[in-house]
């Protein structure tokens, strides 16, 4: 690499797709230790699971189109909302950005040839695939599909007759996958940075994924232990959580949320990293407040690990605990706000091209802000008593998870698509899909906020007639949203099949992945680059 950051292309650009390894066909993929192939393996499975979970979401909304609508029986609805949650959270949202784009781009962005532990990386994928297979297997074995909600609250999860142990065992395995991925990402960031790639020259995506990886390592073991205890209690009758056996159901909730709240940050931090990549590139301008954004990722990851009790304000935990958790919850909003302000400031006096990745990134900011600000409302102790466990909360977290992480994911996919596949999609059509998706999203989820405010509890397979209008609007929104998703993904598939060949650097990015061919060669860099400038110096 020369001083101004442009790599000299002195080697034949044999892409990693053409790599001839030990194996052929499908084995060349599922036994590959190439971080790019593993990233794409995750992409395939995650999109498959995502479409299954979206279908379940569609069925739920259809059931709720009118009071007493006879689409399915209560047990079926209870199983479907449980599966929608388990699949979306554990199989899709948690791994999506770190496992797909973290795998594919973190090594390239820091100037490395692969992850620190390529074989462990492959093992992570296999654990992920096995965990997912076990979760799906649990649906068809003794007792039938799990009906506990994705939270598995005790003592209900200890008493219900469905196959809880196998499902939680599946999630347990998924946890192992997540931990190993975290270890790999942290180690890679520490050990494999190219010469000159100092911490403050790291692309902010790397900072986001790095902070996330620490949460994966530190928090995930807790959920593993918790689910192991659920299995032990169900098989051996040892009273850990069931009060009838001397256990404590609140202990379960604490352990569950010690992981599952930080899990929200596992979902959102990498998406924030994506937004921090996209905005400077399409504004042709250095990111505003690099260090503020980098450190706020670390602040969110650390303070965010101490706010789990806000899921338990009405559980019967002590009032004192609630007060402390509420205070910390409000404080963790500050680093998120700092990020938003810095992103908006980056646009100021830029030279902005509103291409699809930027459109998705700005939509992230808007929808995530609604999610974050509704979070402030329900984080206030007095208001929480009213809104807890209502549709308000359902609306809130869909704004965070789908509006935030989901749109961050779409930004990443449209940003890195030409690099990953070497093809370009039709950008005008993407904008059409975005309009449908954005409208559908808000028609689907905004009424939920009002429903919750009016007192509609969540996880109800039916509801009193006065809630009808808003439920009907929400259901119609779900159809529009799905149409938008189909449009957007169809357009990408078309791009894959007959899109134009992508340039190596179609967006004129300055980070390292744009300095190598599209798609990248097997070992990314012929010679390890020497980095002489920051990731957003477009010059």
């Amino acid at each position, binding site marked *: 690499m020369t001083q101004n950051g442009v790599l000299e292309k002195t080697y034949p650009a044999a892409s990693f797709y053409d790599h001839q390894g030990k194996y052929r066909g499908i084995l060349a993929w599922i036994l590959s230790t190439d971080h790019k192939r593993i990233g794409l393996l995750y992409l395939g499975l995650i999109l498959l699971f995502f479409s299954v979970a979206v279908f379940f979401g569609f069925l739920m909304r259809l059931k709720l189109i009118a009071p007493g609508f006879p689409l399915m029986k*209560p047990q079926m609805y209870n199983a479907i909302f449980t599966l929608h949650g388990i699949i979306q959270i554990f199989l899709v949202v948690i791994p999506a950005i770190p496992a797909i784009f973290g795998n594919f781009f973190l090594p390239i962005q820091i100037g490395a040839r692969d992850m620190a532990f390529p074989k462990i990386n492959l093992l992570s994928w296999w654990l992920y695939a096995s965990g997912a297979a076990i979760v799906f297997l649990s649906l068809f074995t003794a007792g039938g599909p799990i009906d506990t909600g994705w939270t598995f609250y005790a*003592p209900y999860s200890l008493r219900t007759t469905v196959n809880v142990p196998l499902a939680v065992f599946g999630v347990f395995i998924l946890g192992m996958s997540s931990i190993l991925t975290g270890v790999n990402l942290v180690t890679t960031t520490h050990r494999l940075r190219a010469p000159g790639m100092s911490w403050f020259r790291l692309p902010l995506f790397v900072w986001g994924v790095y902070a996330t990886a620490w949460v994966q390592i530190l928090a995930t073991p807790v959920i593993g232990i918790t689910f192991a205890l659920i299995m032990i209690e169900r098989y051996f009758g040892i009273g850990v959580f069931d009060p009838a056996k001397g256990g404590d159901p609140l202990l379960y909730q604490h352990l569950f949320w010690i992981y599952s709240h930080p899990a929200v940050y596992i979902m959102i931090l990498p998406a924030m990293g994506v937004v921090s990549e996209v905005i400077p590139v399409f504004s042709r301008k250095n990111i*505003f407040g690099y260090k503020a954004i980098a450190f706020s990722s670390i602040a969110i990851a650390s303070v965010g690990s101490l706010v789990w009790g806000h899921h338990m304000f009405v559980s019967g935990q002590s009032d004192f605990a609630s007060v402390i958790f509420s205070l910390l919850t409000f404080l963790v*909003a500050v680093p998120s706000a700092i990020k938003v302000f810095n992103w908006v400031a980056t646009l100021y006096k830029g030279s*902005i091209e509103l291409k699809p990745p930027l459109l998705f990134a700005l939509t992230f900011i808007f929808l995530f802000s609604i999610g974050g600000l509704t979070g402030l409302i329900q984080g*206030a102790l007095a208001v929480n008593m009213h809104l807890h*466990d209502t549709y308000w909360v359902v609306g809130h977290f869909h704004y965070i998870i789908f509006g935030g992480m989901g749109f961050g994911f779409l930004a990443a996919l449209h940003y890195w698509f030409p690099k990953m596949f070497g093809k370009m999609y039709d950008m005008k059509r993407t904008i059409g899909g975005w309009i449908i998706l954005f409208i559908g999203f808000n028609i689907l989820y905004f009424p939920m906020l009002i429903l919750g405010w009016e007192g509609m509890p*969540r996880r109800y397979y039916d509801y*009193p007639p006065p809630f009808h209008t808003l439920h009907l609007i929400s259901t119609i929104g779900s159809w529009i949203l799905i149409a938008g998703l189909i449009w957007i993904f169809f357009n990408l598939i078309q791009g894959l099949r007959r899109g134009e060949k992508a340039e190596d650097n179609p967006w004129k990015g300055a980070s390292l992945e744009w300095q190598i061919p599209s798609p990248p060669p097997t070992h990314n860099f012929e010679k390890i680059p020497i980095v002489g400038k920051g990731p957003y110096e477009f010059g």
Partner: protein
Amino acid sequence: MFVSWATGLSGEVVDQVFFFILAITVFLLGLITFLMVYFVIRYRKKRNPQPSDIHGNIWLEIIWTIVPTLLVLAMFYYGLTGFNFLKKAPGDALKVKVIARQWSWLFEYENGVKSTELKVPVGKPVKLSLTSQDVIHGFYAPAFRIKQDVVPGMTNTLWFQPTGVGTFDVFCTQYCGLQHANMVTKIVVIPVDEFDQWIQKRGKEIEATKGKPGGAQLFHEKGCVACHSVDGTPRVGPTLKGLFGKEERVLIDGKEQTVIADEAFIRTYILKPNTYVVVGYPPIMPPQALTEDELTELVHYIKDLK
């Protein structure tokens, strides 16, 4: 009755905090969105081909760290004062025990009167002590803006003070299984004298039966009515009308058999529900704690449902 408008002292308190924070958040959202859209239009490539080289501004960073911190601390404090009010019941409150079970509510007053609806006098504070007989439930009265999980093995408390008469929804908000969505009842707020009359009349009835409720009353109090009808309509469980003496297809250890629903069958079914499972119904009936007298009364009641 369903309302999004608040009632009771708690309703007023919660709404004040809600609208205070809502106003701030709507302003912030508007500001962020406006700036974002304005910048994208004002600094589009066509109009502004040459971007400015700005890396940050330390003063801006300080301002937008401190101002949001102060704002969220204000929100926290306001939420806390409301919480303090919502958590401290006055000493003279009417005390009612709330018993939750899959999938019904029972309210027990201090003089032993039991009711499946929560009747309370207007203008008086009411303090609830909540316990669960099985899994976790959630007591939620949206109009009063109050909610509290009902946890087995724990007694949680909640209080409210109605300010006007009316009938208000109570929902279960902690997912508790099959009929979670049907675990609903009402808070009925009535004038003070009407309430006094009612509670005294019911109190006398209890004395008359020496605290031994009849089968019909037990059928309600023990929550049977949540799943079993007495008029022939199948619900979550089979109807109990005409049950006695009937032939039932049941599963015993997974094998389908025909049994006669005699007294022994009904007694066993109540005490250990999943010994048999009636074909076509889910195996989810929770066992009930009953005294021998109560069981006898209940079985008599069921035998008479012709």
